């Protein structure tokens, strides 16, 4: 029996629903940066006017708006969850900082830095001194440099100070933990629904999730993995929903979204590493034979074997970079469009920038799904290549 046309139509329905939902959220979000940023602008001018930090302030005022730094700051990880406001006036969720130093474990809250990111505020903890510079934590120098920062910088303006190992609950880690918790609650709840309504048709949230699960099973796992697909289903489903949900969460510009989790190379690296390890450890003799004794004339071996060996590693590396680049690019695009307002220093640009941003975020909704799908289907493909049994070679 072929039910695929039913799942297809339901899939379309669900996609449309999710799109509408997130469109709504994004619209709300579009409204926020506008007001936020105008407030920031007002704040900074206010600050500059009153405080009169002469040199710094005038320098800041004269400088054109540094879009690149602004965007990179927004897509990078941070040690606290910033809500609104700038500098001393910023409001955010302080997150725990966990450092493995030369003298053992040190923990304190990120609020201890008093929103300083220039290395000017030294935190004393466990008899050690730390500063935060560009969201990196360094051992503080004994004396401040000419800019008032407790770090020594080289010619490239990079800090030379030693760094403790930073295991802090950063914005990305926090977002990650939130999303993992939500995924656990949602899917264990769904599983409970299956137990409660055993043998019956799905209902409520269950019927929203089931087509997606069936999609992963029937369109991703089965065609690539063959009859041995069941063993890899938990990994494929987890990775699919993890990436999809985090992609979507990344599109929500306010708490608890907004973190660039799946657009962070560390996250995609771990995901790709999982695929790599599963592929490598489930590879059968045909897989290894194909790598070390490819079906080519023997004199081609010096060329083919290194190529095949490199191929083992390039596949997960491509997975890692694809997801990272796609999601990061989406975030950069969104921020660039919003930044148009600041580049032109004119709120009149907003009627052009905001609809564009809405349009791009709709595309990003699609990308969120497509990237999750591509990561999962390529993982399934690589694993499928490793476990494939061919008797003809």
């Amino acid at each position, binding site marked *: 029996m072929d039910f695929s046309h039913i799942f297809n139509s339901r899939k379309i329905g669900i996609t449309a629903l999710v799109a509408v939902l997130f469109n709504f959220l994004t619209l709300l979000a579009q409204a926020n940066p506008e007001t936020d940023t105008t407030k920031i602008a007002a704040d900074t001018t206010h600050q500059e006017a009153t405080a009169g930090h002469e040199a710094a302030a005038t320098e800041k005022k004269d400088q054109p708006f540094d879009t690149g730094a602004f965007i990179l700051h927004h897509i990078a990880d941070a040690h606290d969850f910033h809500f609104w406001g700038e500098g001393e006036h910023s409001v955010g969720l302080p997150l725990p900082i966990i450092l493995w130093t030369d003298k053992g474990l040190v923990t304190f809250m990120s609020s201890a830095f008093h929103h300083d990111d220039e290395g000017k505020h030294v935190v004393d903890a466990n008899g050690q001194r730390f500063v935060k510079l560009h969201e990196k934590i360094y051992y503080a120098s004994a004396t401040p440099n000419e800019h008032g920062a407790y770090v020594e910088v080289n010619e490239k303006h990079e800090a030379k100070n030693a760094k403790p190992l930073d295991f802090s609950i950063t914005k990305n*880690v926090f977002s990650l933990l939130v999303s*993992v918790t939500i995924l656990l609650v949602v899917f264990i709840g769904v*599983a409970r629904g*299956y137990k409660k309504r055993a043998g019956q048709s799905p209902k409520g949230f269950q019927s929203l999730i089931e087509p997606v699960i069936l999609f992963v099973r029937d369109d991703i796992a089965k065609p690539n993995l063959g009859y041995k697909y069941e063993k890899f289903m*938990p990994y494929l489903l987890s990775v699919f929903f993890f990436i999809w949900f985090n992609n979507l969460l990344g599109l929500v510009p306010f708490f608890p979204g907004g973190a660039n989790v799946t657009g962070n190379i560390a996250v995609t690296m771990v995901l790709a590493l999982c695929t790599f390890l599963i592929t490598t450890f489930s590879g059968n003799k045909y897989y290894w034979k194909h790598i070390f004794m490819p079906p080519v004339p023997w004199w081609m071996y010096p060329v083919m074997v290194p190529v095949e060996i490199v191929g083992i590693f390039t596949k997960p590396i491509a997975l890692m970079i694809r997801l990272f680049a796609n999601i990061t690019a989406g975030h950069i695009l969104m921020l660039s469009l919003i930044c148009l307002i600041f580049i032109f220093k004119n709120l009149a640009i907003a009627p052009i920038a905001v609809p564009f941003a809405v349009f791009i975020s709709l595309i990003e909704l699609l990308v969120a799904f497509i990237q999750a799908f591509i990561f999962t289907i390529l993982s399934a493909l690589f694993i499928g290549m490793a476990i494939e049994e061919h008797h003809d070679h």
Partner: protein
Amino acid sequence: MELVTPSIGLIVWQTLAFLLLVFLLGKFAWKPVLSAIKERERSIDDALEAAKKAKEEMARLTNENEALLKEARAERDVILKEAKQLKDQIVSDAKASAQAEGAKLIEKAKQEIDSQKAAALAEVKNQVAELSLQIAEKVLSKQLEDQKKQEALVSDLLKEVKL
């Protein structure tokens, strides 16, 4: 460059969180969900198979019924035909025997009539002879009352007789 440099903290947390997610979801979500879906698909397949079988059984029964009905109809036709034949035979037999009987009766009646007629004729003849005799007697006696007449008669008779 910083963008493509993975930080150790996030790697550790992501590894922990993701492995935990895969483990917990695998154990508490995917396993029951997938087995439930499989079970349901199996039961749907079974139900469809059963429905198909029932349909086939139904068709088979219908066919059987039809065949039976056909057979019964044919048998009925045969019986009816036979009955008709029998009836025709009986009727024709009856007709034939009736005809024969009738013919016999008619024959008998004819014979009876003939015999009765003969008897009647014989009786009539006898009576006629008797009556004739009586009449002749009476006539003769009357005629012969007188002598003259007797003589006349004799002479007449004699005249008739030509010798």
